[in-house]
């Protein structure tokens, strides 16, 4: 049975309809989840989409992590449910300590809105299970604070445990080790700065995001 994806909406989120549309384009079903909700019981996968949750005040994700829905997201993740944070959603996952490290302002302080070439570095996550290691994907980036950073010990753990799932072919933002996306230990929580939901149709310039979101839908089907 195909699962249903919940797309979480904070005040200031602006990529939620793109995410729902992308899931439906790929044959899945999705519903919006408002940040004041406290249950995800009817859902089989979660997307924290891009935008500016709570205005990005203080730091991106810093306020969103205290939204009522985040308790349910943490429990869902702890139970092994598939969770993907895209762009601002990645920042929220880091602030909520569901993923290690932090996203800093881009090197050069430029807001970047451009296509990026990604290289799949690991297929051991719910977002990359359908891809192949070394596969190159054209997926747009759209961020100001997308430079992933962590301490040396955390980077060593990420590399040793094969948790760096996507790297930039050419580093656009100063991200440590060219990191574009990482996973938690079990691989069911993934954060990435690029926007796969904006790359599911050739009309949009690329359909390379489909392999990632199909992997998520497959994981949600198993969970359903």
């Amino acid at each position, binding site marked *: 049975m195909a699962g249903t994806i919940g797309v979480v909406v904070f005040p200031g989120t602006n990529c939620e309809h793109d995410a729902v549309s992308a899931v439906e384009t790929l044959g899945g079903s999705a519903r919006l989840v408002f940040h004041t909700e406290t249950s995800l019981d009817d859902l089989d996968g979660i997307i924290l989409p891009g935008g500016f949750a709570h205005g990005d005040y*203080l730091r991106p994700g810093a306020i969103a992590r205290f939204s009522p829905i985040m308790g349910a997201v943490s429990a869902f993740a702890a139970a092994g449910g598939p969770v993907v944070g895209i762009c601002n959603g990645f920042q929220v996952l880091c602030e909520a300590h569901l993923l290690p490290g932090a996203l800093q302002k881009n090197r050069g*302080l430029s807001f970047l809105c451009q296509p990026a070439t990604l290289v799949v570095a690991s297929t051991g996550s719910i977002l990359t299970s359908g891809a192949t290691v070394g596969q190159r994907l054209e997926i747009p980036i759209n961020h100001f604070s997308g430079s992933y950073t962590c301490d040396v010990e955390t980077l060593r753990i990420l590399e040793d445990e094969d948790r760096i799932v996507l790297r930039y072919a050419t580093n656009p933002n100063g991200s440590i080790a060219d990191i574009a996306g990482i996973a938690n230990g079990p691989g069911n929580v993934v954060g990435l700065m690029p926007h796969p939901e904006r790359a599911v149709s050739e009309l949009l310039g690329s359909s390379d995001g489909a392999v990632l979101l199909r992997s998520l839908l497959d994981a949600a089907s198993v969970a359903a």
Partner: protein
Amino acid sequence: MRFLARVEVRLRPGIADPEGATIERALPAMGFDGVASVSAGRAFRVEIDASDLSAAQSIAASLADRLLANPVIEESIIEVAPL
């Protein structure tokens, strides 16, 4: 009693500071010679009602650690005084 906590949040040593570096590069062009380095951070003023100074310090330390700073990349310096 009411106390004023001044919380300065700054990047940990070794964390890249593109904002500070950009300001630092701009200064010589404006004619400021002699500026050795600039680092960027942010400051908060928080008024706290507490029974005594140590209680106010404890509240300030907790809110700085849990919200104002991201301990992964930032550290905070806190000064608390009676208002």
